[in-house]
Every structure is written in C-alpha cells, then in structure tokens.
C-alpha cells in the first residue's frame, strides 16, 4: 500500500451514507455523516469516529451506528456489509481506494439476505444452521480410541486447505440470486443451503475421517434447498474474499450426488 502523501488526501472529508434501522420490524432510514479521513483509514475506523461524534450532516444529534466486527483482518467475516451496493468485509475496505477525493460519498448498508438486528448488524444464524444441516465437521467423538487418521496426499491437502479458508462471512449468499431472505427458522431446512455449505460438504467429504458422514451430507444436498437450487449464476465465486473455488465445489458435489443417487437407485441405500 503506497502511503498517500498529498495534502488533499490527508485532510479530506468523506460522507458516509448509512442505512439505519433501530430494531427488527421498524422502518429503516438513511443518515449521512461527514467523517474526516486519515490516510489508511478503513470503514470500521470511520464507524468508530462516528460513534464518538454521532452528528448527522444536518447538524442533528444521532446515536452511534451499530455494526459487527471481530478480527479486523478479514478472517472472521463478522463485519460483512454492503459497501456502495457490493458485499465485502468493511475492515479490509480502505477509504483511500473507495473515496480518494474530498467530499466523496460511501454508502453502507446491512446485508439484505439476513435479518437486520440493528443498523449494519445482521443475524447470520441461518448461515451456521446450514453448516449443521451439512454436518460440516469431522466426527471423532466416541467411547474408544480411534487410532491415527488415514494417510493423506499433499495434493489432496492443498485442495482442502483452500476450502478450509471459508470464514462463513456470507458474501457468497448475499450475491446469490437464488438465496433469499428467510426470517423464520422454520423455513431454513427447506430454503437454499448456499454455496458456502456446499463447499464445506466437499471439504469434509474429501477428508479421510470426515467422509464417514459423506452419504449423510449428500442426502442433505439432494433434498429440498440442496444443490439443485443452485442456478449457476456464479456470483458466489466472484465475491468470495478468500477466492475459494465455490463453483468447482458445486460441480464436485453435483458429480458426487449424481453417483450417489445412481448407486442409491440400484442398491437401495
């Protein structure tokens, strides 16, 4: 990152237009704040400045904007939001790249595919529910010692390493035209499971020990809301901040369920 040196860049003011909602069920509204931006500032540091100076551009006193954030280094996924209409992590979003000039405007909105808790904070519980639907874990709990795991090749490890970088941020779901907001938990088991969970099914099915649950995962994938709901728009792979090959995972699980269902047809299980 080249350090900005111009006078204008150091003293500039950036206007943040923020979609706000006090709590679930209440109507939302836009509020704008002018924030003095230092070189290297990111969206979170600007939201911190607003929290300290919650005054809108019409000089009206407001309250701090609620947002979620954790690691501040793009590995936890908590601060995912829409920035200028596109989904991404706000901690790694540098103002210098988005609003290089004095008076530039940045638009912040909460993700639209999850219920809003307050302001920019959403409830991503459905995303984690999808991981339990997928059984995205390696089952090693038991009453006896299972011994060492099976041998693995470096090639297979490399494929899985990339998939394991998923931080469950929800970018792939936000950009997916087939993934829609489902407020009620009762509908989560039949609504589209999403690219992240399909990719995690591949990760754990290709794991030497994790694959004992392979057919359970594939059964979830062939059910309602499973892989068949994918429409191949391939937005997921383009917005993924970790460059996870989500569309390859979708095709790999597509192949696995093809074989699984043919086997099931002829053997009955």
């Amino acid at each position, binding site marked *: 990152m080249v350090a900005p040196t111009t006078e204008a860049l150091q003293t500039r003011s950036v206007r943040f237009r923020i979609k706000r909602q006090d709590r679930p069920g209440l109507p939302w509204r836009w509020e704008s704040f002018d924030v003095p931006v230092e070189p290297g500032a990111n969206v979170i540091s600007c939201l911190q400045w607003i929290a300290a100076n919650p005054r809108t551009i019409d000089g009206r006193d407001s309250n701090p904007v609620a947002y979620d954030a954790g690691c501040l280094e793009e590995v936890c996924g908590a601060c995912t939001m829409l920035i200028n*209409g*596109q989904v991404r992590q706000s901690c790694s979003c540098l103002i210098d790249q988005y609003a290089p000039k004095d008076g530039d405007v940045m638009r912040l909105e909460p993700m639209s595919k999850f219920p809003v808790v307050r302001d920019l904070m959403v409830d991503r519980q459905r995303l984690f529910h999808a991981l339990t639907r997928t059984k995205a874990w390696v089952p090693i709990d038991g009453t006896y010692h299972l011994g060492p795991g099976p041998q693995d090749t470096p090639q297979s490890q490399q494929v899985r390493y990339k998939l394991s970088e998923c931080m469950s941020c929800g970018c792939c779901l936000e*950009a997916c*035209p*087939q993934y*829609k907001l489902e407020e009620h938990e009762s509908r989560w088991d*039949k609504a589209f499971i999403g690219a992240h969970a399909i990719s995690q099914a591949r990760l754990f099915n290709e794991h030497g020990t994790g694959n004992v649950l392979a057919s359970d995962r594939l059964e979830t994938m*062939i*059910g*309602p809301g*499973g892989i*068949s*709901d*994918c*429409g*191949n*728009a*391939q*937005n997921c792979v*383009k*917005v993924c901040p970790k460059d996870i*090959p989500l*569309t*390859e995972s*979708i*095709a*790999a*699980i*597509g*192949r*696995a*369920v*093809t*074989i699984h*269902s043919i086997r099931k047809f002829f053997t009955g299980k």
Partner: protein
Amino acid sequence: MASIIAGFLDRHYFLIRRLHSLTGVFPIGVYLFPHLATNSSIVWGKLLNESKLPAGQLESLGIAAHAGVETFQHEVNFIHSLPGLVLIEIGLLWLPIAYHGLLGIYFAGTGRSNVDRYRYQDNWRYTLQRITGYIGVLFIFIHITSLRFGWTYWGLMPAFDPQAAASSTAQHFQQSTLGTTFIAAFYLVCVLALVYHFANGLWTAAITWGLTVSVHAQRRWGYVCGAVGLMLAGATVVSVIGFSRLDIDAARQIEQVMRNGPAGAARHVEPGGSDVLSASPDGRDP
C-alpha cells in the same frame, strides 16, 4: 391436497430437478438439431442438391427448379412417414416440453436476478437463461398450435400443410396480416432466444451433473457450447431468410409436380390443409 403435493415434491425433489435438467438436453435440445437442419434445407437444399424433377415439366409451367423446395418437402415427407408419429410427438416432444417449461417457470420464480448490483457476465447469463425460458414457453405454444394444429391466430399466422410443406411455411411467414418483417423478426427473436437457452443450458447441465468440475473444464466446455449455439443460430437465420423470401406460387407448383409424380403418372393427393391451398387463386390442383 396441497400438503400431499408438497410432500411428494419434497421426497422426489432431486429426481424432479434432474429430470428437468435432462429433458432440456434430451429430447428437447437434441431435437433442435434435426428441426433446424430440416428448416434450413430450404436454403442448403437449393445450394447442395440437384433438382430431381424433369426439367421440361417445370419449363412448361414457366417456373425455375428449386431443389430447396424439393429437399424440404422430402424431409417433411420422411418425418410424416415415421410410424407412430403422434406417439413420438407426445412422448418425445410435447410431454417433455410441457414438463420442462412448466417446472422451469416455477423454478425461475425461486430466484431473483441481481444484475443491477453484480454486473458479471455469468450473472447476465443466468438472467438471460430465465428470460429466454419465458420467451421459449410462449413461443413454442404459439409455434405448435399454429403450425401443428392450424390455429391461425386471426390470420396472423397462416397454417402449415405437410403436403405443401415449403409453400405453406412461406405463406406462414409472408401472408400474415402483420407482414413478413413482423413474422420474420418474431421467429428470429424467439428461436435465437431458444438457441441461447439450449447452448447455455447445455453448459450449466455439465456443472449440474458434475461433468465439468474444474474452471478449465468449464471454460473448454463453454467453447463447445458456444460453437453449438452459433451453428444452430446460423441455421435459424438461414431458415427465416429462406422462407421469408421464397416464391410461394413457384414452390406450390413444384410441390404439385412432386405429388403427382413425373409426367403425370397421376397419384392424386387430397391436399391436407385444403383451406391453405384454396386461400390463393393459383393453389387449385390441375
């Protein structure tokens, strides 16, 4: 009742979705090849084939030979000579098309396009696949009802007569109350939409079934699907131009000579759609 249907759909969801994918490729997509090859024979038949009719007979009628009309009529005769044609039509065309089309409308409704926010080429591809699907359902309904069942849509689309294949198809294009240009544009837009729908569907079906897993394999298969699409699009354009410009009267006389056999070895054939032939004063049998 609704819960019984919902339960059935849930239990067989995967099979229903995969059958939807399969029917799009086979038989519907595969059918495009012989269909468009036959239609475009009005042009390639003229360029590649020799007229099989005695030249003197056509000369005495004052018309030039047109091997395209002969080829097209020959192809249509072959199709109509197939045993159990209605069963083939129902089993391999109408039922699969109804299944693919109606479920496709339902499945397309489960998504919401967001090309306004995410302007990726693939996202446009996704959106176009749905739009062309809607166009296709509407077009195929009009196409089958007008050319197969003789609905003329108040003179908008004169009917098809398999005994006078080329001339009645040309009438379908040229004797519409809205004019040749309208019908030609209608066919171009709708059939090219369907060709796109098939080419893109062929590409995504390979992902759905797990044939193309890696990005490289998907790109390579994309070239194949693109070539297939361009080929079918070419046949579409050629067919539409061929029938929009065909001389209807000359074509009808060639067809009559074909029906009656060379040198009047008379085998009188009752015109199937006599209303079509009698629609024009020149259409009477000799």
